[in-house]
């Protein structure tokens, strides 16, 4: 079929306005938030209804055209770069919240709903949707599910996969598949929901997603603990968990990040400190009081020089502002910001932090590290300028080594960003060849023409 005829077919499905063909439009969908080379799609299609979405998928499959489904394009792994060309399918017009059920605590959404808008609607009804990826003001729920996005509350509340109860998705033939449901318990058939979450668009195309909601915590308390060394802070993290306290958030910032943030905001952070822990406990008010005292005590016993407990909302906000400032402050230092999310078992955080320090020295690179210490998910952030080819080679080598270390410590390639193109080459290292082959066999049956987000996740 000629390209022109194809365009006509897509226009017949989604309408002329929703098929983008100009060079400028196509180029606008040739990248995402990952530091990777651009790749131009041949066409961009924006379905506005479920039916249009199904027909779009079928038309792509009938013509063996690669398709990359894209929400806001905020992912950090290149998952939405149309690396094999073909068609970018935008979900931004599939943005309806179909139901928020206050009796049974679930919601049904289309994939293009913006995460924070959804969380806001849920909050208005006195309920809580905990996953809070850093990009939540722009990221879509479909993207969150595809990449299995995390956030600051992962330690206590888990990540996106812990909130997906079911979905409907289109298979490559454009058939609508239903999996999971609206009941808390649902063990019918294969756990296709589990299979589809984090599949990065390689196995099917989400149509609607059913998400679990929970009651919000009645109270919360935030604090900032200051340590002379990263190791002391890490020991405090281990001790808090060992004391059977599960904070909602337990975040770490290293000295470089502290100094950069302070330079950026002048909020009075201790620039001499080796590390900061930003901690929030939440739950029943009495328990929050008790946990806060225990956490403060544990931090002090682990050589915290000071522990500042937020007395009111303004102080609590100041604590979290420091954390929110970490990325923007680091991002301003150099043109290119490579944010990794190597994750290790919690007890291995000290080892990982010291490995990162060594790697920064070895390759003479600037690496600021902050992240979710409570769940072992660190964000070593390399500050560089991609135009400096020589330095960029060192960055690439450093990234390889970061993952070598994370895996050697029993960790994983990605805590919350996904694999995409950026880390596909390391997959064998973590999962082994059998897992790759198994995945490939599955993929070859479910997507025989290989149209669904080719070049991502399992190319090794």
């Amino acid at each position, binding site marked *: 079929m000629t390209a022109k005829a194809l365009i006509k077919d897509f226009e017949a499905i989604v309408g002329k306005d929703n098929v*983008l063909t*100009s*060079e*400028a*439009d196509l*180029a*606008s*969908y*040739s*990248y*995402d*938030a990952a*530091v990777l080379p*651009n790749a131009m799609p041949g066409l961009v299609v*924006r379905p506005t209804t479920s039916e249009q979405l199904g027909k779009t998928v079928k038309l792509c499959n009938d013509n063996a055209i690669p398709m990359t489904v894209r929400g*806001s*394009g*905020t992912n950090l792994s290149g998952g939405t770069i149309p690396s094999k060309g073909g068609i970018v399918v*935008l979900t*931004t*017009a599939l943005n309806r919240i179909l139901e928020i059920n206050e009796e049974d605590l679930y919601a049904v959404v289309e994939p293009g709903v*913006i995460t*924070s808008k959804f969380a806001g609607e849920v909050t208005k009804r006195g309920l809580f949707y905990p996953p809070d990826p850093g*990009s939540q*003001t*722009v990221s879509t729920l479909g993207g969150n599910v595809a990449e299995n996005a995390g956030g600051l509350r992962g330690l206590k509340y888990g990540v996106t996969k812990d909130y997906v109860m079911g979905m409907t998705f289109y298979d490559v033939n454009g058939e609508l598949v239903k999996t999971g449901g609206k009941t808390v318990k649902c063990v019918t058939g294969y756990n296709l929901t589990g299979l589809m979450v984090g599949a990065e668009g390689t196995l099917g195309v989400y149509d609607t997603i059913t998400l679990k909601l929970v009651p919000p915590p009645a109270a919360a308390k935030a604090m900032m603990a200051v340590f002379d060394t990263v190791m002391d802070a890490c020991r405090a993290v281990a001790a808090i968990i060992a004391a059977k306290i599960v904070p909602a958030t337990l975040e770490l910032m290293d000295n470089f990040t502290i100094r950069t943030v302070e330079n950026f905001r002048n909020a009075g952070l201790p620039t001499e400190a080796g590390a900061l822990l930003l901690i929030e406990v939440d739950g029943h008010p009495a328990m929050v009081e008790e946990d806060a005292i225990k956490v403060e005590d544990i931090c002090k016993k682990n050589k915290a020089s000071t522990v500042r407990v937020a007395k009111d909302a303004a102080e609590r906000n100041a604590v979290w502002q420091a954390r929110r400032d970490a*990325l*923007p402050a680091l*991002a*301003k230092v150099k*043109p*290119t*910001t490579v944010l990794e999310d190597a994750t290790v078992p919690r007890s291995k955080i000290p080892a990982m932090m010291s490995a990162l320090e060594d790697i920064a020295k070895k390759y003479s690179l600037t690496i600021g590290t902050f992240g979710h210490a409570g769940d072992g998910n660190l964000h070593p952030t390399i500050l560089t*300028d*991609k*135009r400096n080819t020589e330095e960029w080679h060192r960055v690439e080598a450093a990234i390889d080594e970061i993952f070598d270390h994370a895996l050697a410590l029993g960790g994983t390639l990605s805590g919350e960003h996904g694999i995409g193109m950026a880390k596909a080459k390391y997959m064998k290292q973590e999962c082994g060849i059998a897992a790759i082959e198994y995945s490939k066999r599955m993929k070859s049956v479910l997507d025989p023409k290989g149209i669904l987000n080719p070049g991502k996740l399992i190319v090794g």
Partner: protein
Amino acid sequence: MADPKKLVEMLKSLEDQLVTCMRCGMCQAQCPVFAQSGREGDVTRGKIALLAGLAEEMIKDPEGVNNKLNRCLLCGTCEANCPSGVKVTDIFLRARAIMAAYNGMSPTQKLIFQQLLTHPGLFNTILDLGAKFQGIFTKPVNDMLGTSCARFNAPIIGDRHFKTLAAKPLHSDVPSLDTPAGASNLRVAFYPGCVVDKIYPSVGHAVLKVLKHHGVGVFMPKGQACCGIPAISNGDVASFQKMVKANIELFRKGDFDYLITPCATCTSTIKKIWPAYYEDKSDQITLAKIVDKVKDVSAFLVDVLKVSPMDTEGTKTVTYHDPCHLRNSLGVTAQPRTLLKATPGVKFVEMTDAASCCGSGGSFNLKFYELSQEIGRKKAQHIIDSQAETVATGCPACMMQMTDMLSKAGASRKVRHVVELYADTL
């Protein structure tokens, strides 16, 4: 020019700024244009990627990129919220200048910038004439808002509900002023700006009344030129230079403590755009003096004259719209609200999304009226939902846009400048 090689060369000069965008996409949450269209080419990240694509010769269609580049209100909301601190306004203004040099300007643009706005006398004469004859072409539609629409099919006007040119512009009532400092011991230079002069002279009169009331001397030279923002945002750097030069010449002669404007856009342009783009080295000292002294009128009243809130709340409900150029560029958000609370009889109510752009964006409104309306309709709805009788703001361009949108919605809400409401009570 139209030499692709030269275009690439010129775009390369932006490279250091373009690479600072880490493509995180956070601008999507901020951009009023993207909120309507949902298209990546309409949001900052997309436009920067397109410019980079052109510079790297990965994209071969400058016109296509230029179209996307123009679809920006220059509201600065993305810049104010950008994690990487990308200098968006600067990039876009420079890119537009490059594009204008490459593509050339339309005859209409040339006429407006090179012939009209650079010759304030001629500009005034033509619009004075226009004010006399506009009744033939327009008819009133909303008495409360004082709007009119076109009698005949007129392409530039479309179906706009607009405020007609004032029968008597400010400059014909008050050609110039030079009064000594009074009780305040202060003297200010007064720069009303084109829209206040020609469409909302009442705002200019209000400023003068307030200054007189507070014993502030006024230096208002005759023949003030446009601040230059329409020219530079359309890429006409040369006309911009002429307009700034003309103004510098006028204000050089005065002795004043502050330079006051009732126009958010003019204030922001003088404060940020003049020092960044005005090139004549011999004027730099005068320029620095002016830039240092320029102040939004409500910021002057609250910060300098210490006008402070009343103890008692009035009954006349007023809400406030944050002009982008006051909020994003100058960080002026508290003072206009304080001024409203200091106005006897006013009961201040906050509207939802007071900080969101009204969709005017100067010539954006002319180029993309549909899009501008879609953004403006949201603003009008927030104003209506606030239940306030009056919406106040600090930018005459926002006043025009909100008036159009409210008039079309058939809403009986008044649109006033904050300083007008305050002046009413003196």
